[in-house]
């Protein structure tokens, strides 16, 4: 009996060892692929940066921090890697050293394709100064398929690594912006109203029409529409918010413009340094037209979205910049250094009189289906405000599920409408379902919010005491408040998670996810 037990144990650990080594090997390939894509980003910039934005250099000096969903962190080209990072000799690219930090690694296979997003952050220090790095959170991506597939059921475009190269380029442009421009107004924090969303959509349509119009005079008229729509849109905004919006456009829109310019220039000539063997999802930028078309699609989607102001700045800003290329060549000279805005340069170029503006205001009503657009946004804004009133009016014990330790933003798949206010998503009829590795969370249909990116919040209006709010079953308990393989049932959701902690305070139950996989 004992012999067979030992045999089973050996077999078990052998399998575990095999799975672990195999997972690590696959993950190592994923890390190498990200390095190859970074190398290709630099190669692209070697060929296009000077034309995409005059004076843009120094992009290879910016360290990159990749935070993989399995907890591994990879740091490239950092002059003084923080504690925990170990040099990996096999991963060197160009003259840059590569470091890995596996202190928080979990056994989770990283399968390609993977991609990441993020932005520049100060990370670590060197010579008593903080070091600016591009920080990317990297996780799995859908392979996707042909949008025109005969079945018509595949909606996600086929994944191409060129997208990741453009993301890298976008973030590197932000790093360059920091050298030549200082933020003056801060991020736009503004919830839309019906007037804003209506005229924002008209602005977006006018930008598209101007971009697609071949005749310069006609295109210029659309630009005038854009400027007048903008003035009407901003009636409910404070001056500071207007400046924030224009500043977001030069920052985010400026970076998207750099992507578009890079694509346009790659179309003229391009020599890659990586090949299919390095990354099977890399296609030598042969689909560059579709990448540019993707930016126009981005504009179309952004302008329609009722409840978001800030995300419009990416495409709205980019297409203003593209139109400045056409109408005012040379505009990039000292643009950031002098603190210009895109819309300001367009206004200066158009020199609209008050009388002209009045005429244009009238034509916006007829040329852009003002009534239809306004009705659509008004209805949604009303629903949003009512949904918020519903959740804000719920009084009782607050139950929070905190996903911050998972390194991922929870993104549920709601089957019913939901609304956004700031960084709150309101699910008045529940959030549907959420799956993240071995975590499963199912809504009961009760009103829930997702707040501050990582936190679900449900208010129990019936229970009197904290521990009446939930029932828990689990496989193992550690200490007073940590549960393994737990199932938590509340009136708002059912949560299954490999490891959680529950903290109770007066009127508050916090369920903190400690791991998304079994440890």
């Amino acid at each position, binding site marked *: 009996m004992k012999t067979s037990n030992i045999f089973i144990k050996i077999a078990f650990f052998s399998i575990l060892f095999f799975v672990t080594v195999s997972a690590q090997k696959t993950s190592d390939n994923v890390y190498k692929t990200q390095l190859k894509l970074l190398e290709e980003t630099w190669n692209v910039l070697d060929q296009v940066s000077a034309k995409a934005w005059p004076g843009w250099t120094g992009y290879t000096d910016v360290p990159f921090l990749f935070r993989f969903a399995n907890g591994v962190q990879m740091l490239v080209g950092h002059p003084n890697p923080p*504690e925990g990072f170990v040099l990996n000799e096999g991963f060197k690219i160009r003259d840059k050293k590569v470091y890995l930090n596996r202190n928080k690694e979990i056994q989770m296979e990283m399968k390609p394709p993977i991609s990441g997003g993020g932005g520049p952050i100060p990370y*670590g220090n060197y010579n008593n100064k903080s070091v600016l790095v591009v920080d990317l959170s990297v996780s799995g991506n859908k392979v996707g398929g042909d949008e025109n597939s005969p079945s018509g059921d595949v909606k996600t475009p086929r994944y191409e690594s060129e997208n990741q190269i453009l993301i890298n380029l976008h973030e590197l442009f932000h790093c360059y912006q920091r050298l030549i421009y200082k933020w003056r107004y801060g991020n736009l*924090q503004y919830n839309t109203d019906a007037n804003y969303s209506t005229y924002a959509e008209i602005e977006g349509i006018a930008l598209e029409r101007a971009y697609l119009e071949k005749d310069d005079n006609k295109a210029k008229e659309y630009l005038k529409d854009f400027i007048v729509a903008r003035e009407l849109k901003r009636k409910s905004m404070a001056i500071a918010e207007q400046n924030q919006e224009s500043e977001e456009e030069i920052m985010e829109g400026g970076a998207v413009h750099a992507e578009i310019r890079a694509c346009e220039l790659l179309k003229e000539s391009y020599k890659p340094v990586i090949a299919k063997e390095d990354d099977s999802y890399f296609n030598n930028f042969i689909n560059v037209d579709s990448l540019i078309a993707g930016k126009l699609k981005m504009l179309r989607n952004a302008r329609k979205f009722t409840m978001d102001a800030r995300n419009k700045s990416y495409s709205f800003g980019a297409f203003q910049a593209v139109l400045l290329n056409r109408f005012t060549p040379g505009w990039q000279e000292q643009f950031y250094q002098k603190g210009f805005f895109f819309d300001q340069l367009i206004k200066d170029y158009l020199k609209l009189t008050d009388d002209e503006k009045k005429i244009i205001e009238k034509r916006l009503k007829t040329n852009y289906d003002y009534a239809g657009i306004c009705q659509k946004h008004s209805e949604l804004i009303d629903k949003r405000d009512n949904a918020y009133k519903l959740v804000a009016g719920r009084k009782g014990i607050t139950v929070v599920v905190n996903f911050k330790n998972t390194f991922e933003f929870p993104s549920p798949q709601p089957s019913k409408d939901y609304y956004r206010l*700031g960084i709150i998503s309101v699910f008045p009829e529940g959030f549907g379902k959420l799956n993240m590795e071995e975590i499963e969370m199912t809504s009961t249909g009760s009103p829930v919010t997702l707040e501050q990116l990582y936190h679900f919040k449900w208010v129990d209006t019936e229970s009197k005491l904290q521990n009446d709010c939930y029932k828990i079953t689990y496989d193992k308990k550690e200490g007073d408040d940590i549960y393994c393989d737990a199932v938590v049932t509340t009136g708002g959701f059912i949560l299954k998670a490999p490891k959680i902690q529950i903290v109770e305070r007066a009127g508050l139950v916090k369920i903190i996810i400690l791991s998304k996989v079994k440890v």
Partner: protein
Amino acid sequence: MKVFKFFFFFIILSFFTLTTLKADGHISSQRSRSYMANKSQEIIVETWISEKAFCIRNIAMIIIYRADLNKIWRIVPLKNKYYEEEINAFEKKDSEAKGETSIHKIGYNYQPVFDWVVKDTSAAERINNIDCRRVTVQGEADFAQKSIEIWFAKNMKFTINDVYKKMLSYLFIKDDDMKKVFNIYKEAFNCLPMKIIETTDNAISPKIIYETEIKKIETADPPAGVYELPKEAVKVNSLEELNK
């Protein structure tokens, strides 16, 4: 907000120095911040305290509080610019700012409201040759948490005079968290915080740790004009303009 935590910290000290030693108090302390794998260089802060004024200064900023003139001056010494506010007006503006949020702003500017648990560990430790007891404070909010360790020097006998009581009260209003902590642990009003380590796990951003420690306490003649505006300092109309 953090500046006011400093205020609080040094005002507590001011009770000690002024009431026991009957001269201008001088405190030298160090502060550092750890965030995103980056520990900032330690900032040395010098504080001078008289009966009706105090001055807190480091390389980048000087704050002068003049109870007698009802003024606070914030000065950027490298640019020789300053911003002036009346203490009463500042208090009024702050209370007005706590009004209802408009629909355009809901969902931004999350402010955690912590529920505090304070424990006196009774553990004796010496900080810069002064006997202290460590007090731990754990704050839980819906999307954030905060832990504070404070090393209090106890058995410091002093009398709190009215001027400083008023200033202390004013400073507590600027820092709701510490106000609540001290209202729970009332003994703190009779102690001297020699060292504070404050760790905040914010709702979105990574952990941030502030560490402040008193290195020296003395009475001394203050440098000339320490409670006055620097010569030829240029007045600006807003904090934004000051920080530009």
